[in-house]
């Protein structure tokens, strides 16, 4: 945190797990990480919206990243977390992830932009980061939060 200067060149990502795949979320868009809690279902909304939670007096919608990506439904475990994301000019929204692993700092040369077919719609990853031999798919939050 004290290296504000480096933030502009390097970016910090929170590494999360969904199934066996690791995803990275840019830390500057993350408002909070909370444990799984009771979610109030909202009727007549897309399936991936699990409902709303009370986050210190605020009503925050929660979506399942798994369902949004067309994966198996979430299995709630002790490790399950809700990551509250706040994009500029938007309200907060929570996404459910299987596990939060760590925070990594990626240098520019560790990030490889993905070239992908524009035709395909369900692309939620804009780049891949390389951390100690492992790969982290960096989430394109705008795509994740866009209504499908």
């Amino acid at each position: 945190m004290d290296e504000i200067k480096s933030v502009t060149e390097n970016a910090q990502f929170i590494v999360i797990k969904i199934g066996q795949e690791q995803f990275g979320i840019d830390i500057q868009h993350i408002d909070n990480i909370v444990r799984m809690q009771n979610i109030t279902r909202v009727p007549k909304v897309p399936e991936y919206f699990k409902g709303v939670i009370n986050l210190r007096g605020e009503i925050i919608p929660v979506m399942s990243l798994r369902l949004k990506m067309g994966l198996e439904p979430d299995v709630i475990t002790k490790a399950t977390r809700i990551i509250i994301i706040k994009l500029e000019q938007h309200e907060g929204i929570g996404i459910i992830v299987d596990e939060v692993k760590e925070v990594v700092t990626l240098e520019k040369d560790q990030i490889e932009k993905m070239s992908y077919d524009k035709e395909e719609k369900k692309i939620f990853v804009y780049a891949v980061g390389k951390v100690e031999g492992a790969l982290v798919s960096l989430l394109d939050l705008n795509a994740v939060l866009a209504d499908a």
Partner: protein
Amino acid sequence: MDVSQYLEIFLDESKEHLQNLNTQILELEQDSENMDTVNEIFRAAHSLKGMAGTMGYKRMQNLTHDMENVFSEVRNGAIKVRANMIDILFQCLDALEGYVSSIQETSDEGTNDNAPLIKLLNDILDSKGKDPVEVKEKDQAPVEAAVAESSASTMRWNEINLGSSEKVVLRAAKDKGNHIYGITVRIQDSCILKAARAFLVFKALEEHGEIIVSNPSVQDIEDEKFDQEFTLIYVTKVSLDEILKAIKNVSEIAQAEGGMMEAPEVESSTVYTGEEEDTTQSNQTAVAVTDMSVPSKSGSAQKDKKQTPAKPVVNRTVRVDIEKLDVLMNLVSELIIAKNSLVSASAVEDTTNSAFNEQIEYLESVTTNLHESVMKVRMVPIESVVNKFPRMIRDLSKNLNKKMELYMSGEETELDRTVVDEIGDPLMHLLRNSADHGLETAEVRKARGKNEVGSIFLDAYQDGNNVIIEVRDDGNGIDVEAVKQKAIERGTISFDQAENMTDKDIIDLLFLPSFSTAKVVSDVSGRGVGLDVVRSKIEALSGEVEVKSKLGVGSTFVIRLPLTLAIIQALMVVVGNEKYAISLGSIQTIEDIRPEDIKQVQSKEVINLRGNVIPIVRLSDVLDIESNKNPEENMVVVIVKKGEKFAGIVVDELMGQQEIVIKSLGKYINKCKKISGATILGDGEVALILDANSLF
């Protein structure tokens, strides 16, 4: 000077002045001889000009300057108010409004010089054959001029009426070898904190002597109840030059002048001023200026206070950013939620501790009061919205060539600020509707034995937790047959359907998008965007619209709005494992219904409740919930009302009544029309709020 920080104040005040001008000019049209009105207009135009000048909006300043010139002539009796002049003035106001809205959007006044208008104004002046710009005009003209210009206000201090005690004090002071000076101080037009400047002047003066009298009074000056000038009578041993210098050391003082005064029983003889004065001006002019700039206490004959119908110019109020109020309201909401959780916690705990319960009850009453006060702070009279309507009706009357009069009552009725901001457009639509569709032309009215001049009424009043606004006209009323024909023509309804529809159903068709019965599409209405917009706007504010109409007699549109949007009393219900809140305002009764009492009509479930056939809605079906209830058991049915219609909502269980704070679901997830929001319960759980209106 960087003026951008004042932009908001400027916009607010300009709008106020423009509204004031609109109202006053309307009044002038009714009573062209009323000097109070003329003075008020002059004052408003003058303030507007000063403000525009300070902010650097030259075009706006020019236009107001010319308007002011015209009024100065009217006030001097040189020009009589005529109908065409009123029209021109209204056009000027429109142009000014144009400037203001352009400034609001782009913080630039735009490039429209409005030269034709300015020419028209000058024509009015020229028609008098007089020099349009009088010498004294320069004196009040823009800020930069004010410092150097000479003033016509010479010897203002002689106009101060001295009380006997003041005379005694002055005489005593004179006897002790003091000088008595009359001093007039003029603060720059651009000065924002006039009272503060005046205070500094007072402080500087009190170092050397004593202020005996001030006009306006010290209290008025502190409250900023003065224009740019104030006049003092001052006793000191120091020379006048020094005193004037001390005053001018205070910044933003445009001018200070003074003169020696004799002890009160003698008339003043010597006049001395601190600047190169043009003292040749007639005393008559000076009086006129005084009258304009020192409204509160001047003893001038032109100003008859008893006749002034206007409200006090300055209210003792504080301008608060609406966002700050929102924050306050949110905090109160949090407090209520916290209180609710305390209440539910105390219900779970062993409740033998009576002191604890007492405190909880005390807390409840405090939070309720707090909520009410904060709500009241957010309430504003609908006046700010409706007072533009007389002008609109006047214009409509000319455009449509119909005679009409608008009668308003209950302008002081208060509503939540957010509601007031939204209510203007729907009301405007309804009024235009009445003027265009409702009222007949003068000839038709005459033939029908009605007063040639149509009446439109706008009445607002509070009714319990609602505010009712009625727009009523004594026009033709809604021709149900015509509407029916039109609907069939357009294929909105089939002929068979039309046969079975009640008049009320047919009138309801008017609220459908793109439905207009006006045979001729006029400038005013008839584009069919009116009534459906009205309905959707009102419903977005959780209100409702009703129509009553009688052919040939007139129609009434009744708008019902909740007093506040943020916190409501609600009935909590349970369906399956989920909890929902239903606003108490829409609930009529709660019924216990046996399953066999449910009948089928057109394959819809209904119940017969004391002679009324009421459709029922199973919440479990509508919201995809699995009901926990045995279908054999009696059902709990909540009867809700929307306008004249009823519906029964079937729920599993009732939880009880609760004060709830409405929170938005946010735009990510607000797709479900049946849900109007969410609230946080005492135990921290979220419950959704059911929009009962959507179930009809």
